[in-house]
């Protein structure tokens, strides 16, 4: 990879050790892909996770004096104070890792969004912007719905790009690599958010890696439907980009999405495939101990829907009820009155927190219910039933899933 003088200086350590380490990682990635040069980015999103590997790298940069050069948001870890007050048995060493991770991201000057949907509020790219966004729903959403350009980054490569303000030019930064690979003919009705969850799960499983192009989608999918598709297609597969010509921005037609080429494969999705996917996910029924919503973090509209369904109702004594969202969304939900309704029904609305964190250890041997296959996938719990939001709420009130 050809480096400019200033990039060489960073690599030699003349701009500090932390930035040097970030540059070393970017150069290794550039070399792996034979990138010709580095290109400036305007923002980044680091999928911080509160794990030991995450801690090692962010502290390496922070202790070396690195600071983010462009706005760089962060993924949820967990709300340490909130959970400390509730449970006194969160493993001390894991809590300490989470605390240090959150502190180190502050030291490198990241935007402490602790949200996995930063592209909705805290860190929003524009069409055509060159960015480095990690996180399973963020990469495809930013590429496809917004039409910005990002590779499928790891937390560390995104943070390194945020610190240096550049990324190697490879992969989805090159137009011909943004070409569609699979044609997906939708014959299913796609009624609601959960149908898009199932569509993402099914398509990801069918094609693995690839850039699907959809036909047969008859109305503009909502923000929430698109988020669900993005997140779930990266649980069962690795979809960094997709096209719904007519509704997503980058290609107006199917032909344009394939850049004139023919698809490597064609797949038809009917209601039957979605029903099958749903049955695969609903493994058990009976008594439940908790309901977990907000993986990915719920939007304000989704929090409102939970409040509407719970208004005047009471969650069963044996069920803990959780809605995970961003601090920005919770502030609005509080102001609008949704949080009050959910709390009066016996539920929690919690910020900064991911489903895959040590704070949930109380439910290790418990059975839960969620509307998110991604939540079930992490396997932090004994068993998790995946179903529509309405079913989750009904089960939370009754104490069981029928």
């Amino acid at each position, binding site marked *: 990879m050809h480096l400019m003088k200033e990039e060489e200086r960073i690599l030699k350590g003349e701009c500090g050790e932390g930035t040097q380490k970030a540059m070393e990682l970017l150069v290794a990635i550039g070399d792996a*892909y034979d990138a010709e040069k580095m290109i400036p980015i305007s923002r980044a999103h680091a999928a911080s996770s509160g794990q030991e*590997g995450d801690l090692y790298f962010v502290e390496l940069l922070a202790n070396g004096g690195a600071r983010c050069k462009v706005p760089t948001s962060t993924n949820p870890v967990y709300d340490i104070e909130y959970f400390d007050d509730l449970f006194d048995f969160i493993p001390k060493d894991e809590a300490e890792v989470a605390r240090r991770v959150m502190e180190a991201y502050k030291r490198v000057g990241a935007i402490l969004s602790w949200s996995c949907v930063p592209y909705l509020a805290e860190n929003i790219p524009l069409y055509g912007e060159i960015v480095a966004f*990690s996180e399973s729903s963020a990469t495809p959403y930013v590429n496809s719905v917004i039409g910005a350009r990002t*590779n499928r980054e790891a937390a560390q490569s995104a943070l390194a790009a945020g610190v240096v303000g550049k990324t190697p030019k490879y992969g989805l930064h090159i137009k011909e690599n943004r070409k569609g690979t699979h044609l997906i003919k939708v014959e299913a009705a796609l009624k609601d958010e959960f149908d898009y969850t199932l569509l993402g799960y099914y398509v990801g499983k069918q094609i693995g890696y690839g850039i699907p192009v959809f036909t047969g989608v008859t109305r503009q999918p909502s923000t929430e439907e698109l988020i669900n598709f993005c997140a779930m297609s990266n649980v069962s597969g690795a979809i960094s980009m997709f096209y719904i010509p007519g509704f997503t921005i980058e290609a107006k037609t199917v032909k344009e999405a394939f850049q004139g080429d023919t698809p490597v494969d064609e797949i038809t999705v009917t209601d039957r495939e979605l029903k099958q996917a749903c049955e695969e996910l609903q493994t058990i029924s009976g008594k439940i101990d908790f309901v977990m919503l907000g993986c990915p973090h719920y939007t304000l509209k989704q929090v409102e829907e939970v409040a509407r369904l719970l208004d005047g109702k009471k969650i069963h004594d044996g069920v803990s009820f959780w809605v995970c969202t961003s601090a920005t969304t919770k502030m609005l939900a509080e102001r609008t009155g949704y949080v009050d309704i959910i709390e009066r029904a016996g539920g929690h609305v919690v910020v900064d927190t991911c489903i895959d964190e040590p704070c949930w250890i109380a439910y290790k041997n418990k059975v839960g219910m969620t509307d998110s296959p991604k939540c079930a996938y992490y396997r932090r719990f004994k068993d998790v039933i995946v179903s529509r939001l309405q079913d989750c709420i009904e089960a939370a009130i009754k104490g069981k899933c029928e």
Partner: protein
Amino acid sequence: MKSSETILKCHKIIGGYGEGEALVSHEPICFYLTDPKTGVVREKGHELAGKNLAGKVLVFPSGKASSVVQIDGLFKLASHNVAPKAMIVKDVETVLVVSAFMVKVPLVDRLERDPFEAIQTGDFVKVDAEKGTVTIKRQ
């Protein structure tokens, strides 16, 4: 017994030097699905299931799984001192580069011959990423 030595050129991704017994996997590897304390592969149905990655020169087609689990998986192996000594891959992607970078394990690709033909499990392999060479000694 006669032993032969072959030296092949390769492409450096993460620098350094590592040597050890080769362990060849024809299937992609997820480091999270190994025992972090011993390096034994725990993934059900994987061709390396029950085999130990610790101290080996790992030859495999590519990584797999989400970035968080893959990176944390290799990081945990390294912190228990049971990571591979070097890695030779066919198809590299961002997450694997980051994983190897974090634990300072040499990572190379583009071996001048198909690595699955050139290397067998049990060969003694030296990976000199800086020089861009892989030396294979059949025992």
